[in-house]
Each structure stands twice: as C-alpha cells, then as structure tokens.
C-alpha cells in the first residue's frame, strides 16, 4: 500500500490545503499585515498548484508578479495608510453572518459544479501523473506572438494571442501612467479639519 503513494496527489494535497487554509485565514484575521502575509502563503501555494498542473511558467510568473510584486505593493499601501502600528476595523457580527452565509451558499454551488462532470474528475487510475512535465515556455511565447498552435489534436480550438497581448501591453502602460498620476504626492489634508477637505 505504501508503495502506491501518488506523489502528485500528495503534493496537490499539501499545496491545496495550504492554499485553502491560508485563504480562510485571510478572511478571519483582523490585522491587515497578517492578512497580507497569509495571502502570500496562499498565493505561493497556488503557484505550487500551477506547477502541479504542468503550468510551470505560469507558476513562476505568479511568484514573480504576485508574491514578489503585487504583494510588496500591497504592503506598501498598508504601511502608507496605517496610522497606528496595527489597525483593526471591526466588522459587525451581523455582517459576518450574512457574508458567511452567502459565501457558504456560493461554495456549495461551486463545489457541486466542480464535481459534477465525470470527465473532470481526473485521469483513470493507474495513469502516472507524477511525471507531469512542465511545458517549455517556448510555445507560450510563440502563441503570444500570434502563431496559432499546430497541435494536431485540437485544431480550431487554439489560436494566436497577438491582439490580446498587444492590448494588455498598452493597458499596462496606461495603468502605469494612470496610477503614477493618481498616487503622486499631493498636499495632504488633515483629517481633523473637515472644512479643508473639499
């Protein structure tokens, strides 16, 4: 029995549980910095899941952009907007109840949708998924440059992504400029004097 441990599944359990636990922790914790930390762990575990799914490049991207970039940005925001060392804004109990209930409903919905299709349940037993290799990034790059894949088994489903790629590039530029404009230093108004803040 011991010899049949499926390491792929094992790692999935490891990373999936990490992701789930820490995403719940994000919801439950009150401190915004701890939230960010748990989020990091959650997203890191997600990156691990990406590796398990054979999307190594996406996983690395996730680490680089989310964990390395976006979250650092977020922490910056936290530090810039925190007045005391640890700011808690208490949520009322009623909101917790309503939010939790709605969330649970949604979760139920999504879970039953996830396990509904037999085909999605995974490969038939005995197929060794532990050898799942990450696809080389070459194909991703080529597809991004607009060359449709000639993967014979999925003709018609795959196409080039040059236009979205370009749109996203321009979008990023716009965002860069826009956020630089929005966040540039302005005269800071005092909170105690609402008459000044028009």
């Amino acid at each position, binding site marked *: 029995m011991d010899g049949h441990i499926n390491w792929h599944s094992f790692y999935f359990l490891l990373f999936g549980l990490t992701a789930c636990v820490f995403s719940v922790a994000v919801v439950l914790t009150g401190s915004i910095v701890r939230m960010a930390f748990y989020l990091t762990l959650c997203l890191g575990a997600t990156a691990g899941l990406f590796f398990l*799914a054979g999307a190594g490049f996406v996983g690395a991207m996730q680490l680089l952009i989310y964990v390395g970039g976006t979250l650092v940005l977020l922490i910056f925001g936290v530090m810039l907007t925190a007045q005391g060392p640890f700011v808690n804004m208490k949520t009322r109990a009623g909101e917790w109840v309503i939010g939790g209930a709605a969330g649970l409903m949604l979760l139920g919905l999504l879970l039953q949708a996830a396990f509904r299709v037999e085909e*999605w349940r995974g490969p038939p037993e005995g197929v060794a998924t532990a050898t799942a290799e990450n696809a080389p990034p070459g194909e991703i790059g080529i597809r991004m440059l607009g060359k449709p894949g000639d993967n014979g088994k999925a003709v018609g489903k795959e196409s080039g992504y040059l236009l979205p790629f370009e749109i996203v590039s321009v979008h990023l530029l716009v965002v860069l400029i826009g956020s630089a404009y929005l966040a540039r230093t302005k005269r800071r108004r005092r909170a105690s004097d609402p008459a000044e803040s028009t």
Partner: protein
Amino acid sequence: MNLLTDPVGASHFMAVGAVMFVCGVVCMATKRNGLGILMGIELVINGANLNFVAFGSEFLRRNPDYALGVDGQLIALFVIVLAAAEAAVALAIALNYYNNRATIDVDRADELKG
C-alpha cells in the same frame, strides 16, 4: 476515494479554486479596510485562475484531448498581468482616498449614494 493514492483531476483543483474564490468574496463582503477588499479581489482572481490552469492541463482529465492546452495557461497569464495592473490602480486609488479622508474605511466612501 483515497487522495493519497488516486490521481487528482481538474475537479480537485476547482474545489481549491472555489474555496479561494469564496474566501475572496467573503473577504470583500466583510472587510472594512479598503486594502482588505483588494486582497479579497486577489483571492477571487487567483481562484478563477486556478480553474483556467486546471482546465488547460492535460494530466488532470479523463481524456487529455479535451484539455484547453496552452490556451489555459495563456489566459491565466493575461489574468495575472491584468490583476497586477488592477492592483496598481486600486492601490493608487486607495492612497488617493486616504490622502483625502485620512482613513481607508470603505464604509465612509458612500457619498455616491443617491
């Protein structure tokens, strides 16, 4: 089924994604801190992303031919990039908001109420 011995499938990834998604939604619904809401959004996006990658993967399906292939990864990439952009803008907005109000509590930002 025994998760330690049986191969996992797209459904399992989707379950993890669903948990993250719901956590994100609940986070958005309950946090009063603007940045907390931002983190909720990140969770939601990642939950969704996980689904894309899972559907793209050929190892997680009964019939690998039905997998999305690289398309799933590509969409996930786009989502990541757009999420980063969104985070930057949202953060800029949050900072601006904070500069104007000296707080980040989104419940105070209800002046658009008609």
